[in-house]
């Protein structure tokens, strides 16, 4: 998927992400970094490159103590590279990373991983096959006395719901159990931050959300600060407080799952999060846009200049089925989801939109049904041509 850059960057440095994140949540300004140093993790203006090829460019992100963050994006977007830069496995090309107010990377400094107090859970868990479960968990606890160490191991086994499994070996555990031990091992030394690299990717799809919720509970109970890397938005929603959507090495938007779904900052986020279609329209005034579905009006300004050619995001839950409505459309496809049907509907203009309907409304393909548009604010973007010609600035 292409990551569109709707506006040219106004300034260098962190400006690249400003346009995208500005609408929802302002992160670190250049002068803001001083104030934010109290945060558990502060990433400011970080770029990472492999052999001259930039993988991550000018990323700002921060987490408060006890927060669970998420780097969400398609594969190859640089999210894992950024995580590894925080862990100390990749050097930063520019920018700084602070952990609990301590500079760990940047300004010529690159602390080795073992000096960062950053625990990591790997995609393949990387449990040590030659050590028992208990000794795996105790691996990072050498500084503790024997008694303390055993107590901490027992505490963690209990925390991840594996009490009594200490004597087993990794190969005797199921995938889900191995994952919990990997989590316990990373949490054992009480790291300043916990990094989770696609920790659920080897699990069955049905299990992932449940595991993500379980892990979230464990982290919250322990009061850990953590970052999850994933390409699965449901995992991100289930687990994270703050989600950063990444593509092409940049952060496009940071926010809660609700924000990302309902107020995407750009076309990429609108496409990537949730389902929906973009329909074309022309801006009438600050609130209204004329489309194939008629004149759509939001309760808030959409921010585009009158006359701009725009694309408006319509989520399946923005379209309501209403037999009374005069707006009649044809069912061209439908997917049964149990409680709901997801209908694909064709307007007379040929435009296809999606509509989520309770599944007792059973309509066959080819049938015509009535619909109504229920949007409280319009999410609209200038078309790329309009953006280029400068009409979009509003």
């Amino acid at each position, binding site marked *: 998927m292409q990551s569109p850059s709707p506006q040219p960057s106004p300034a260098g440095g962190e400006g690249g992400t400003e346009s995208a994140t500005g609408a929802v949540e302002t992160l670190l300004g250049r002068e803001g970094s001083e104030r934010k140093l109290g945060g558990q993790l502060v990433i400011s203006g970080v770029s990472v490159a492999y052999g001259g090829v930039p993988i991550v460019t000018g990323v700002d992100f921060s987490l408060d103590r006890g927060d669970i963050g998420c780097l969400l994006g398609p594969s190859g977007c640089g999210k894992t590279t950024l995580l590894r830069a925080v862990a100390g496995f990749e050097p930063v090309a520019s920018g700084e990373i602070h952990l609990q107010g301590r500079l760990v990377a940047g300004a010529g400094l690159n602390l080795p991983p073992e000096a960062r107090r*950053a625990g990591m859970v790997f995609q393949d868990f*990387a449990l040590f096959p030659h050590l028992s479960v208990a000794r795996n968990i105790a691996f990072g606890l050498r500084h503790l006395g024997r008694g303390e160490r055993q107590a901490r191991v027992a505490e963690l086994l209990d925390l991840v719901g594996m009490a009594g499994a200490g004597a087993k070996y990794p190969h005797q555990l199921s995938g889900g159990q191995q994952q919990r031990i990997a989590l316990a091992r990373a949490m054992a030394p009480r790291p300043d931050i916990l990094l989770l690299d696609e920790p659920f990717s080897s699990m069955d799809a049905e299990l992932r959300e449940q595991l993500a919720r379980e892990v979230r509970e464990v982290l919250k109970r322990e009061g850990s600060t953590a970052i999850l890397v994933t390409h699965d938005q449901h995992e991100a929603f289930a687990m994270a407080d703050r989600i950063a959507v990444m593509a092409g090495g940049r952060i496009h938007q940071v926010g809660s799952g609700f924000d990302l779904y309902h107020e995407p900052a750009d076309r990429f986020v609108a496409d990537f999060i949730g389902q929906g279609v973009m329909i074309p329209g022309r801006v009438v005034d600050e609130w209204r846009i004329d489309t194939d579905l008629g004149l759509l009006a939001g309760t808030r300004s959409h921010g585009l200049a009158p006359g701009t050619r725009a694309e408006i995001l319509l989520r399946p839950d923005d379209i309501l089925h209403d037999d009374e409505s005069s707006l009649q459309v044809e069912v061209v496809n439908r997917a049964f989801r149990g409680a709901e049907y997801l209908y694909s509907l064709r307007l007379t203009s040929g435009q296809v939109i999606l509509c989520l309907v309770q599944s007792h409304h059973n309509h066959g393909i080819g049938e015509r049904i009535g619909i109504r548009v229920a949007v409280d604010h319009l999410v609209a973007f200038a078309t790329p041509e309009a953006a280029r010609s400068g009409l979009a600035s509003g």
Partner: protein
Amino acid sequence: MLTLAATESPGARPGPWTLGVTALALTLALPVLVVLGFLLVPAGEVWEHLAATVLQDYVVNSLWLMLGVTVGTLIGGVGTAWLVSMCRFPGRGLFEWALLLPMAMPAYIIAYTYTGLLDFAGPVQSTLRGWFGWGYGDYWFPEVRSLPGAVVMLSLVLYPYVYLLARAAFLGQSLCVLDVSRTLGNGPWRTFFTVALPLARPAIVAGLSLALMETLADYGTVQFFGVATFTTGIFRTWYGLGNTAAAAQLAALLLGFIFLLILLERLSRRQARYHQTSQRHQAIRRHPLTGGRGLAALGFCLLPLALGFLIPAGQLAAWALEVAGSVLDDAFWRLVGHSLGLAATAAVLALLLALFLGYGQRLQPTRGVKAAVRIAGLGYAVPGTVIAVGVIIPFGWVDNQVDAWMRASFDLSTGLLLSGTLVALLFAYLVRFLAVALQTVETGLGKIRPTMDESARSLGLSPGTVLRRVHLPMLRGSLFTALLLVFVDVLKELPATLILRPFNFNTLAVRVYELAADERLADAAPAALAIVLAGLAPVILLSRSITRSRHAQPH
């Protein structure tokens, strides 16, 4: 910063590892390069003489040997592999690992043993004469010391290569494929020949090419049986005719054959990957063979096992007991000491170099380093005779240069510093057997995933501590296996040791060779038996891994 994981981007400037690994690879490639280099040197009359007289014999005999060993190892190896992996009959579980036992028997030792058993004065012919009252010249008895005899001897000890790979291929085949063939109306025999065999073909060819490389490398058997091949030709040209260039050129020609076999093996292994049809082992429903058919299967598996191991090992043990009193003297124990010391030194050196190469590849996985490591591992295919020639020529040259310079400058003769010393011998062993250690170490390192290094680092361990607390315990088994395999291979090695050993320095293998050459076959038995017993160790390792994989299958 040193990380243990492969995080350096390819294309970075060559680091110390790249330089070190490349230098080592070139050093180890030296013997082969020297031998190939002699293709450019005119050898004059001797070569013309060879070409006109014996060269054709070398080629023809080598081809006959290869053809015979192909037939023998295919029938023995594929047949037994199919029976133990697909059928149920008495003793199947036992044969599954016992069929590997002949691997412990070096070809030259089985050749000496059968010569002692089957020649005119041996127990078999004496017994027959006793029963039937025959005298000398009254009857025909097959001559062991012949080309067909050499084929049988080599086949008996080399079929396990084919057996091992064919068995793995049969077990890896999806049973569904075989079932589909049955539902399409093919009987079990037809299914075997039209489905199972073609699917396993790449694996079988890979095993066969290994067996053929060993056939071409053999010196002890063909020399004893008077079959003129390249290896005996190299010896004859070197010692008999004293012509370095011609010997090296024969060696280069032999390398040409070997090179073709390496190509064949590589291609087959690549194909074999695509032919692997199932991802995991399925519970195999073995076809029960009852009554006479079960006994026939048992007989088919027992034959190579008995002929290749039980009978010769039993005969060696009997002879060893017979002569123990007179042979097991101080001289014998000195031989044992020489052999063990040499093998242990070579094993430790090979392990250290393999670790160096393995870590070089892990830390700087550039294309250059990978190529260098592959070159360093190519020696396993090169016959000991060829390596010996390739070692002695450059080492002798260096010795002469140093000696001449020292004499001119200081009026001091240094004599032979490298050639004719243990240095040359150990270097040859490393060239030949480093691949064995390298493969084991690489497999072991492969099991330590980069994320394990990273886990340990993020849990607060420095790189050195990661080596000690993660790598060492995880590698321990592989390191031990590597040591053991090289140790045993060195113990068995004959031709390179014969050529390169220091004057009057004997090993078990050399002593066996000398006694056999004097027709004192029984006297050779204790040393031969010691070599066979040592050879059992890697076979036990292999059979243990076979048993373990069998237990890992779901039932």
